[in-house]
């Protein structure tokens, strides 16, 4: 059936004045349909809001009636245009005025048709392939001279992710930080259920971002059980976590503290250096696992199961371990690549890598942030993703409980 549609914009205190719901009511009252393409709600009382709505009717006459009615309510028709594409003047930078992405699902209008922007990532530009008529996010450093980049706002539609109205799972009722008063056991149980559902319904990959505290607190074994149970598809971490994991395998200590007894061991402060040194002498973690010299632990489990990981380097690194990617731009590129297809991200006791990962993920990924520090959890849980859950608790407790539920 042929439909007729037009796009309108409204600006001002359209929420507090109820003029926005009024416009939507008017549209429905005429038997027409609406689709909210973008809505930006003012943060403070004084800030105005903005909404862009597509109105669709089954007849031109109805559409005209609706448009004139809502026009007097402040809904102004916008002229639809294709996105403006400008060739990048050189390698490694965007043309001036480039459109900067959010992590919300985005479409651009090209040749009169809307294209979904692929590889969604915030703080990127949008590149359109001339030959294939496809659009995807591209990071500044990866731009090549001549790449067609979207400039300005025209022809770009952004939609906040819709909540699935059918499911009544954990993410539907919770947002932002979970207060310590809520039952952690129940929440972890629901996280486990979510992960089981993702796996059984083949709804994407589970990404884990982990920090060295996993090793210090004695959570290695629990994480390994989760890996063995098949609930880890990608791991992002750094030199620290891997080094202390290997230190624990080789010396039974982490940062020189005995895992079994919790006491500092003589000369223990150098154990992590010795561990790194040993792996370097073997030509890498994978080689050490193959030769049987590295027998257990998290890195061992990842290599054995063929689970991809990125250990992103930093200026604080000792060594580093050979697998660590010290070129941060390259590390970011590999992380972005591995983010494809991720539908759940779990971030445990890791500040820097968690923030970096948050910047790479689209808003549609459900994230779980676990840390002892409330501010850390709030900061991560409130970043740009709509479907995130924060849990203030000890990494070891969380992983032990979760491992029990997933592998038991």
């Amino acid at each position: 059936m042929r439909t007729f549609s037009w796009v309108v914009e409204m600006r001002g205190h359209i929420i507090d004045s109820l003029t926005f719901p009024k416009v939507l009511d008017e549209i429905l009252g005429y038997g027409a349909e609406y689709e909210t393409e973008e809505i930006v709600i003012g943060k403070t009382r004084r800030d105005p809001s903005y909404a862009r709505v597509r109105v669709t009717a089954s007849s031109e006459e109805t559409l005209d009636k609706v448009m004139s009615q809502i026009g007097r309510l402040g809904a102004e028709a916008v002229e639809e245009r294709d996105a403006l594409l400008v060739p990048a003047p050189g390698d490694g930078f965007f043309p001036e005025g480039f459109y900067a992405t959010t992590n919300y699902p985005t479409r651009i209008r090209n040749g009169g048709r809307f294209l979904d922007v692929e590889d969604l990532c915030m703080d990127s530009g949008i590149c359109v392939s001339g030959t294939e008529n496809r659009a995807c996010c591209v990071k500044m450093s990866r731009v090549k001279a001549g790449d067609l980049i979207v400039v300005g706002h025209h022809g770009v539609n952004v939609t906040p992710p819709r909540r699935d109205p059918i499911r009544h799972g954990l993410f539907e009722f919770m947002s932002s930080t979970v207060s310590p008063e809520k039952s952690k056991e129940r929440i972890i149980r629901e996280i486990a259920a979510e992960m089981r559902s993702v796996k059984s319904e083949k709804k994407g990959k589970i990404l884990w971002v982990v920090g060295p505290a996993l090793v210090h607190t004695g959570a290695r074994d629990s994480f390994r059980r989760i890996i063995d149970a098949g609930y880890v598809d990608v791991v992002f971490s750094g030199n620290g976590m891997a080094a202390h994991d290997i230190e624990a395998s080789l010396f039974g200590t982490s940062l020189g503290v005995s895992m079994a007894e919790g006491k500092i061991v003589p000369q223990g402060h150098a154990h992590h250096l010795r561990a790194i040194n040993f792996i370097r002498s073997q030509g890498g973690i994978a080689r050490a696992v193959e030769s049987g010299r590295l027998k257990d632990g998290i890195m061992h489990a990842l290599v054995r199961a063929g689970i991809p990981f990125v250990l992103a380097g930093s200026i604080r690194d000792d060594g580093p371990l050979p697998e660590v990617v010290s070129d941060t731009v390259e590390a970011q590129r590999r992380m972005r690549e591995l983010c494809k297809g991720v539908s759940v991200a779990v971030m445990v006791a890791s500040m820097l890598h968690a923030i970096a990962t948050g910047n790479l993920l689209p808003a549609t990924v459900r994230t779980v942030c676990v840390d002892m520090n409330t501010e850390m959890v709030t900061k991560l849980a409130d970043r740009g993703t709509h479907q995130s859950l924060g849990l203030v608790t000890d990494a070891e407790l969380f992983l032990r409980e979760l491992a029990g539920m997933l592998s038991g």
Partner: protein
Amino acid sequence: MCPPDYFGIEYEINPWMSRSRPADPVAARLQWESLFDLLRGKLGLSISLLVPEKGAPDLVFTANAGLVRGGIFIPSNFRHPERRGESPIFRRWFEREGYEIRDLPQDLSFEGEGDVLAVGDDLFAGYHIRSDIRTHARIGELLDARVLSVELADPRFYHLDTCFCPLAHDSAVYYPPAFDPYAARVIRAHVPRTVEISAVEALRFACNAVVVERNVVLNTGCGNLKSILLGMGYTVWETDLSEFIKAGGAAKCLMLFLTP
């Protein structure tokens, strides 16, 4: 304010006006002067006067000159051509007085303080009959304020100041049937204390009152509202404005706040 030297019913642009019910110039002058004396003498306002001009009978209704905030004047764009001749007169006055003039787009009608009234930090703005809702976002930006748009639903109450009157930073008097259901909800949601008036008193322009701190000046014959206001601790001054009601205006319409 503007003296009523040339006030009269010369055209019909609202349901109150009828050329078969002309204004009595002598009575109009007495009523206007009585209001002027109350505002200056009893309410202590210092009043600047515009020089009246022949051919601009509604110039007396200075509330529609535009909106004044700080040193900024946002001029009106009159919906009806009959009043458009007033615009240059008002503009000249504000230019001479050194106000910064900020125009709204010419194709959007806006009738000034008659349609925009402040309750606390919020601006309530009427639309549909005389002012265009599309001016509200711009006014909000210009004045850095939240503008709550309210639709006027009864042609007899064609300006916001005929059916809505702020009292203090958290209270207002209003006539609910003059608004559409959404607007009535918005008013109830954002004005902590509201006083509703009856149809009888609404038709006597009870809402078209001048409020200065604890003083209220309004048309005669609004006994119920007067009692309520007295009960709230206000001092109420009544003055007959029947000649001006023939043109669809009363106390508030006849003055424009320069320092609200």
